[in-house]
């Protein structure tokens, strides 16, 4: 089933994190979908910490003569790190990520690869979607907030089934919970991204309830993405905005108090508002100073930061209109 890596076309990375299904059933389903494509592929399971039940299934598959790669992480690092570990091993021209549980119908995953003819990254969207009204609301709130903050509209960032071209990988560095926003980050790098409808697996049912901590995490994630996407290269724009407005409010209040004292002779000594205004002024200055520090960090590392991505350099005759993307790949391989 697995051919020589020279002609390897698709690498499938499956991070096995907290939520996973039984390995043999999952394997059978994905293999069916992948075989239907008629392209060579490899499977990479990344075990994010010990997942004994899943390993049992994998061992059985090995006894049956199935071939795949298993990467075992010593402890649970989280899905982003597991994905990165898998990406590093992936040798195919196309990289797929698939969930370690039944989320989408395995027969549909080929659609993602086919979509790559016109885009750089195809991300799945479970459609039609089952789920209660509350879950629908929660989802729309999350995606609405993401769209508002990043300016990109997605409807199923939670779907783990994605396909991407190799060149996207070179410019992605995922950490924390950023795997949710893989499509957003790729779009920011100037890659073309498309959502592809996949049938939802009938077994895709989340039984547990989301705890309030999870909600807090998601909102903070969005904030992180907001900061990464909009302000990483101009921290003073962000901190300056907050700092100047805080300072402004404080200064206005302070001016009012001083005028009140000087003109209307109202004593300052027993006015807590004086404390508040001084605090605001000082806080504004501190936040502004943080922004300046951020700028200092950017500047002192400016050589390593590139603000733009070159698609290709067109020139005749010496470079022969070779797309730069391919040149990049050669360079990356040489590394």
């Amino acid at each position: 089933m697995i051919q020589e890596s020279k002609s390897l076309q698709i690498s499938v990375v499956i991070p096995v994190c907290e939520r996973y299904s039984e390995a043999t059933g999952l394997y059978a389903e994905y293999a069916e979908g992948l075989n239907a494509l008629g392209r060579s592929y490899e499977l990479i399971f990344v075990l994010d910490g010990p997942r004994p039940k899943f390993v049992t299934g994998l061992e059985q598959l090995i006894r049956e003569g199935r071939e795949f790669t298993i990467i075992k992480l010593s402890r649970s690092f989280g899905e982003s790190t597991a994905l990165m570990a898998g990406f590093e091993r992936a040798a195919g021209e196309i990289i797929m990520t698939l969930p370690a549980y039944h989320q989408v119908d395995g027969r549909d995953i080929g659609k993602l690869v086919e979509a790559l003819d016109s885009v750089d990254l195809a991300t799945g969207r479970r459609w039609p979607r089952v789920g209660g009204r509350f879950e629908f609301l929660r989802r729309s709130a999350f995606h609405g907030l993401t769209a508002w903050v990043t300016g990109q509209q997605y409807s199923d960032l939670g779907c783990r089934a994605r396909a991407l071209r190799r060149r996207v990988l070179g410019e992605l560095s995922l950490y924390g919970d950023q795997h949710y926003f893989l499509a957003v980050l790729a779009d920011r790098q100037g890659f073309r991204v498309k959502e592809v409808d996949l049938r939802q697996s009938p077994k895709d049912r989340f039984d547990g309830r989301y705890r309030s901590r999870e909600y807090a995490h998601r909102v903070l994630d969005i904030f992180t993405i907001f900061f990464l996407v909009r302000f990483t290269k101009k921290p003073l724009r962000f901190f300056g905005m907050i700092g100047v407005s805080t300072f402004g409010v404080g200064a206005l209040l302070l001016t009012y108090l001083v005028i009140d004292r000087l003109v209307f002779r109202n004593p300052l000594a027993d006015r807590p508002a004086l404390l508040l205004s001084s605090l605001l002024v000082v806080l504004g200055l501190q936040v502004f100073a943080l922004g300046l520090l951020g700028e200092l960090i950017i500047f002192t590392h400016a050589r390593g930061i590139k603000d733009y991505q070159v698609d290709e350099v067109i020139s005749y005759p010496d470079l022969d209109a070779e797309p730069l993307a391919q040149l990049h790949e050669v360079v990356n391989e040489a590394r």
Partner: protein
Amino acid sequence: MPDRPKVSVVVPFFNEEESIRPMHAAIVAALTPLNIPFEMVFVDDGSKDATVPIGRELAREDSRVRLVKFRRNYGQTAAMAGGIEQARGEVIVTMDGDLQNDPADIKLFLDKLDEGFDIVVGWRHNRQDKLISRKIPSMIANRLIGKVTGVPIKDNGCSLKAYRASLIKQIPLYSEMHRFIPAMASIAGPRIAEIKVRHHARQFGKSKYGLSRVYKVLLDLMVIKTVTTFTARPLLWFTLLSFPLLFVGTLILAYTMYLVLFTHTPLSLPIAGSGLIFLFSALILFSSGAFGELVYRVGDMREHEFAKLTQKVQFSPGIHR
């Protein structure tokens, strides 16, 4: 490959399909009589119109043209930086892609560089733009930029500039710094000359700027001041910034002490509290400065490397090398 070009003309284009051909013709017409090898680096900043196909045709017709195609729109600074990175000449000339600069002026720039200057900037002395929305704000901005950065240039907004490649390739360009390249370059202490250039009214397309950038320019100015003057001494800079706080805090506390000790009025919590807040805040700013020193240490910007870019070494006649 032909000879290494001596001059690289870097022109960013963003949706300028009508301008790119006339621009090419004008540059060729201006530089051919000078008889020096040159190249044109056209940067397509994610145009949605026919800029790229036309640029591709131009590159095919004229081997001196290279078109750097960005994956999407990244803004003018990035376009300039991308072009400068790709340029191979010893001298890099940058100009706008909207035909408002006149390539015929390039000769003057090259002459100035030959005189020993490192950067030559253009001054649109008969600027063809709206007075209220463009010229007056830009005049104020230029005065301010000159005062703050100590690089008194009359027209920072003029894109027509010429640089020694060895220098400009080392100057960090990011965010929206293209307006401040000479100020940014001042970390290397270059010799800067300013010459008058012609400026034409816009023929095609529409202007891509408005009045709304005042706030951004002010913040950028703060950044430039910080990074050019004080990168190597952040502690000093933040300590300077903390002086007003220190002053106000000390004054308030001294006043409170005076009231309590000499007039026997009871201690006022709000007043004493504000004094302490100001004082502590000065301390935190001071710590930020110390933190800045740490940042500088782990960064890769070194003042002595910038000094090397423009230094001239002179040997006395008797020295044996």
